[in-house]
């Protein structure tokens, strides 16, 4: 069967294949989902359990990052914001979080408390309770520093489910892409510059008003974390019977990020964002939604493409390039490492 590789956890194709083999194939259909909710039969940002008048939405994620403290945030902030965002992306209102912290023996106590403090301060700011948790210590050498797992719970009256994307829908991105991934890459490669700062932040102030007002017109929402925009759009195309067309000239990427990517030979479309959302919005309302997003302070939000009816048998994302050519935008695979060629 081979061995588990880092690529299996990178959020790209390898991760989906591993999940398929490891978990999905072992589950009978009834186990994958509760009632007419949402579960593993349709992997979205969160799961949904039907209750009278709506749904309970729930999500769980394990967070590691190297370095643990990075420009713009740290592991604690990442784990709180990430879980809140997953709930929001399904149309949920985040209510409570549970955490499990596994820490390596010998870790600096100050670092540990900084991480926990930063997790709690995000939850406090967003009015989300921390209702349970666990902490374990592993012998030194058996874990690289610290691992934080957070589970989140919330309510939704209507779900935003990715498979509802329809031909004609406009794809909106709410801010410059690849900011988190670029900050991590720069930190790992020893590049010191004030230009790189993770965008990690909860998207509550953006998403709650949108959900309230446009629940019927936002057909899909996703925070493009691991695997970046490229992964998210490929998932959308596959699950929705559409083909997605993206205009390279419309993509908001900050110049320092472009430069870093060119230097390191990586594609900004495959770098993670942790405080930016992708939305698929019905064409009639797209302009209005975009205006509202700008009004909420996300000034760089843009329409970057659209869904079209599919002519091929499989889901595809096609990128219209700067010079007027076109190429298929592949879901990223493998770890993100600098290359020389």
């Amino acid at each position, binding site marked *: 069967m081979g*061995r*588990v*590789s*880092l*690529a299996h956890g990178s959020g790209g*194709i*390898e991760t989906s*294949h591993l999940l398929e083999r490891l978990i999905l194939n072992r589950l009978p259909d009834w186990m994958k989902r509760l009632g007419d909710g949402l579960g593993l039969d349709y992997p979205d940002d969160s799961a949904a359990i039907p209750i009278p008048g709506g749904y309970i939405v729930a999500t769980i994620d394990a967070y590691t990052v190297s370095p643990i403290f990075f420009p713009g945030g740290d592991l604690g902030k990442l784990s709180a914001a990430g879980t809140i965002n997953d709930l929001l992306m399904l149309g949920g209102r985040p209510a409570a979080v549970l955490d499990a912290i596994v820490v390596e023996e010998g870790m600096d106590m100050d670092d540990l408390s900084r991480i926990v403090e930063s997790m709690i301060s995000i939850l406090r700011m967003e009015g989300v309770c921390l209702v349970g948790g666990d902490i374990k210590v592993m012998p030194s050498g058996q874990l690289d520093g610290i691992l934080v797992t957070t589970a989140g719970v919330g309510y939704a009256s209507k779900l935003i489910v990715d498979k509802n994307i329809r031909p004609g829908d406009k794809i909106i991105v709410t801010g410059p892409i690849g900011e988190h991934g670029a900050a991590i890459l720069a930190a790992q*490669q*020893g590049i010191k510059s004030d230009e790189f700062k993770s965008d990690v932040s909860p998207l509550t102030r953006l998403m709650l008003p949108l959900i309230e007002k446009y629940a019927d017109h936002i057909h899909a929402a996703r925070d493009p974390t691991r695997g970046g925009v490229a992964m998210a759009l490929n998932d959308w195309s596959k699950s929705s019977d559409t*083909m997605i*067309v993206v205009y390279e*000239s419309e993509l908001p990427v900050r*110049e320092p990020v472009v430069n870093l990517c060119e*230097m*390191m*030979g990586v594609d900004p479309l495959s770098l993670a964002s942790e405080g930016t959302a992708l939305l698929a919005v019905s064409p009639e309302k797209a302009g209005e939604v975009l205006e509202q997003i700008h009004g909420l302070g996300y000034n760089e939000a843009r329409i970057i493409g659209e869904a079209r009816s599919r*002519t*091929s048998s499989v889901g*595809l994302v*096609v*990128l*219209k*390039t*700067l*010079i*007027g*050519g*076109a*190429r*298929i935008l*592949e879901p990223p*695979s*493998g*770890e993100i*490492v*600098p*290359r*020389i*060629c």
Partner: protein
Amino acid sequence: MAQKGDLRYLTKRLFRDEILASQIVNIVRGYWELLRSKGVEEVKIMNFCGTHEYTTTHYGIRSILPPGVNLVAGPGCPVCITPSFYVEAAVKLALEGVTLYTYGDAYRLPAVREVGGCRSLSEARMMGADVRVVYSFLDAVRDAAKHGKPSVFLAVGFETTCPAYASAIANNLVPENLTLIVAGRLTPPAARFSVERVGTVSGVIAPGHVSTITGAGVWRFLPEEYGIPTVVSGFEPLDVMIAISLILRQIMDGEPRLQIEYSRTVTMEGNRRAKELLARVFDVVDAAWRGIGFIEKSGYALKESVSQYDAFSRYGMREPNRSEWSHDLLPGCICGQVIIGAAKPTDCRLFMKRCTPGTPYGPCMVSAEGSCSIWARMGGRGVVEEVL
């Protein structure tokens, strides 16, 4: 941000301009029509540089060229052509506790044979080996000097990359604990090898950054001995498209010659200092290319005078010689043919069946710049064209 005369900014503005691009396409089409009216059915333009291939794919250049103008990739990916032996040696050392440095490209490169259950450095890292991916040799030099542990750099690359090793060695920057597995290769011998075997190359886009070091002059043999129009080109999309138009023009005029499109940084003579450094530190030897075999005078090896930097002698290993060396390809994989442009990926029975970008089998599928991986991603050409 924009500043008068800022060449970094100007490059992005000018050499990625959509309107200029469409006019260059018109010019390419114009020449192509003229050629067709003279009875030419196909032109096959070969590049010898993975970065040209990257530009071609990344900007979708194939999708806007006339159907008879075919761009094929030659052996221009240092990763695809690095013999399995070096990867195996690096994995072995890493598993024995040596700190191993390399670039991201070589980090993923699979060996043909497993060593200690690992096929690549990335797998060795999962098994707990200390493998560090760096952006440059200098970063490794500094890191190794800091920790002082036994360290090895897997030194792949062509003429552009190898001066980094030469310069650090010649200037005594390399700490005592760091040695190199030198797998550097020279491109002109491989280009000669490919055009001789393919036979039908109508034009060559020669590697721009290699030529900054070697000088464009090293490509003179292509027009002079083989009658192949040759253009040394830059790496922006418009550079590649202009190079294509220049090649078509040469074909039309029936006067194959060597032209430098990338004149903003390439000269006929090249980089004298880098060439001196290379000559001071390396001998040029017959060397193995994965899937291809030995090519005369196509590899770098450390000179006797700097042999203290050689990882093989430090760790009691040696390179296989010609008779011990095998072609390094897995059964069924025809990368050797694909690499020199003699076969198309679709000619391989494993293409998109056993061998896909997600589950690569042969080396050409591993690197993002391997031809098979590129073809796999360009597979939906029909779909792509609908969008244009």
